[in-house]
């Protein structure tokens, strides 16, 4: 196998090197890629969409259709992880352990009995390790700021690096951080599985819905300029707003998907205390 791999690799590599001979040199301002289409985007982005960040305008407007499916890919990934891993309708184990938070005494209950949810007791599993107080507290402090920053990144995508994907990932990371620093159950209390699973399609649906709204308003799919009539602004500003709407959708979808994938993979679909 190794030999075959080596041969294939060398042959392919040699072929690619051979092909690279005709490529323009690195950072050549006159390469076709830099002279054919990109000038149009750079020069007209402001005029067409009044979005200073060309990447954003290109991402969400000129090639907004790609981006919609990109978001769908994310959603698909979350769904596949769920459908592959989630163990549904699984009954509780016979013995369950609860830990008294203040004293640290662990109670073990048989025949699947439960302790009514209270502040003093936390449910733990066999592979429970004592959590580090510093990490817990530190993360608790950081998480709100992380989320705030995530919102900023989404909102400010128009005129600075950022946008729905980046902001969404940051938001998702905040919840995942909670799950890592405490345990999955704590995170799930903040954000239930059902909420995640419904918000995720909703996020993408916001994107597609915006496009469909334009379609219903009588122009082509994703042609935000039609929103002008709804938002009572000029078509160019309408495009900018349309881009913002879809960015929000992207943000929601990406955040929830990140959480969804983490929940399923970290607990192998059992949704116990996780890592």
């Amino acid at each position: 196998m190794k030999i075959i791999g080596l041969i294939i690799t060398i042959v392919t590599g040699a072929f690619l090197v051979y092909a690279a001979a005709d490529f323009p040199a690195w950072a050549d301002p006159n390469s076709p890629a830099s002279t054919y289409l990109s000038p149009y985007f750079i020069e007209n982005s402001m005029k067409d969409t009044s979005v200073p960040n060309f990447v954003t305008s290109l991402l969400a407007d000129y090639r907004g259709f790609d981006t919609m499916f990109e978001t769908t890919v994310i959603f698909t990934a979350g769904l596949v992880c769920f459908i592959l891993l989630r163990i549904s309708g699984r009954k509780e184990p016979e013995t369950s352990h609860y830990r008294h938070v203040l004293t640290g005494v662990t109670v073990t209950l048989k025949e699947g009995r439960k302790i009514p949810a209270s502040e003093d007791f936390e449910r733990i599993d066999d592979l429970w390790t004592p959590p580090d107080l510093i990490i817990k507290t530190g993360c608790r402090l950081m998480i709100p700021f992380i989320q705030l920053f995530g919102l900023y990144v989404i909102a400010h995508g128009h005129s600075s690096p950022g946008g729905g994907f980046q902001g969404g990932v940051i938001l998702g990371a905040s919840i995942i951080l909670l799950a890592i620093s405490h345990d999955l159950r704590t995170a799930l209390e903040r954000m239930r599985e059902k909420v995640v699973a419904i918000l995720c399609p909703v996020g993408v649906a916001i994107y597609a819905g915006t496009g469909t709204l334009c379609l219903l308003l009588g122009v082509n799919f994703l042609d935000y300029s039609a929103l002008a009539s709804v938002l009572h602004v000029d078509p160019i500003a309408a495009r900018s707003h349309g881009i913002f709407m879809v960015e929000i959708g992207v943000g929601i979808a990406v955040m929830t998907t990140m959480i969804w994938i983490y929940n399923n993979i970290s607990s192998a679909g059992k949704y116990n205390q996780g890592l």
Partner: protein
Amino acid sequence: MSQQYPALLVIVPLLSAFAISIAGWVNKRLCFPIIVTALSVVVYASIGLLLTVLEKGVVIYHLGGWPPPVGIAYYVDHLNGLVLVVVASVALLNVIAAKKSIEQEFPDKAGPFYTLYILMVTGLLGIVVTGDAFNLYVLLEIAALTGYGLLAMGEERAPLSTLNYLYMGTIGACFYLLGVGYLYIVTGSLNMVDIARLLPPLYQSRAVLAAFIICMVGVWLKMAFFPLHAWLPNAYTHATSAASSLIAPLVTKVMVYVMIRLILTIFTPEFVFATLALKNVVVWLAVIAIVMGAILALAERNLKRMLTFIIVAEVGYMVGGAWLGNRAGMTGAILHIANDALMTLCVFLVVGNIVYKVKGYAFENLQGLFRKMPFTMGAFVVGAMSIIGVPPTCGFFSKWYLILGALQAGHYGFMAALIFSSLVSVVLFFRIFEICYYEPFSDHHGHDHPPEPMDEAPLTMVVPLLIVAVILILVGLYTVDIVNHIIKFAIPEGLV
């Protein structure tokens, strides 16, 4: 509304996918009606689109109102108009037929399953309808990811074989992406028609040659063209019948479509057949693919797995036909996309019914099925005849054009391979008929037959199957119309 058909084709299933996935958490019983309505709308739109194309010629749809090459455009001509109808109708028929087995195999995850199902259909439709090289890659990945999900939900070996499929599929998609990157670096454009306009001066450039070859290898990986087919049999065999009967007919065919689109639209036939000296090499590869597929199928003692190897051989048919480099061969390849999709659907639906009733698809499970499930087996006979290539089933007619192309190209090896594979399929299928018909047989005149009671699959599974069987014959009888009114215009004048 009619000018929005291209958008509807993709939007309706996409939105309904979200609706289904939400409904899966709220009320499971809604999922099936939603998916059926959505797919019916898609079928309607695709047929409407095809009629518009037949009437007015090529339909171009600017997404986001941006004219190409700035924005992404949908580009529908006779070629993908035809493929769209096939994809949509196959998806609709299959979901109706698969309902029971889906409920039987995973009662609690039906919602997510339907979501993946319709997302996959969205991806395939998008691949077919799009006119933008990069957009095609994104949809390729959607179809691939949903496919992994659907295939992996099968037997216990499914995850492993799916993981192998994932490796191969990713390499394939990445190769395609790289090829598009090569085109972009030399032309600066991503729109297929625009690239085709910019390429001719660059035909001698190594980069274009590399772009073409890399794209081809990528697409061949995805369509399981012979040396690169290793992932397909396991992945399809271990999947659930609902998934395999969607993926087996469509994915490979759509990839063949992509290949033909690459040859005809992006790199024009002049470049592919005239400038490059690869024509005969590829046809000989196809010959090997056909022969090996047939032989490997002979070695199988398990119906579903045997069929997967037949798919490998059929891919050889289409690649070879497309690369013969003449009109008849290309016609045969395009016609075979439609026919093969239908006949593969037919036989895989049969497998679905058998699995539903008998819980197995090894040869020994098939004994006495002709008495047990007469209608299913009747449809199976039609499908088998079509694969063998017996008139008036449609399989014969595409094979006719392929052989004609081989004759006109003077490529007798390909012709011989086609004949050979037909003969092998006769053996394959009559071996199965014998088992289904005569076993369990007894040695003196089989008088003491235990008369099994008839135990046919539920109506919702049998009726779509019979519809497919009828379509197989109707398509055969109307071949000349399909060829004269659709495929004739799908092939550029330059190709004689």
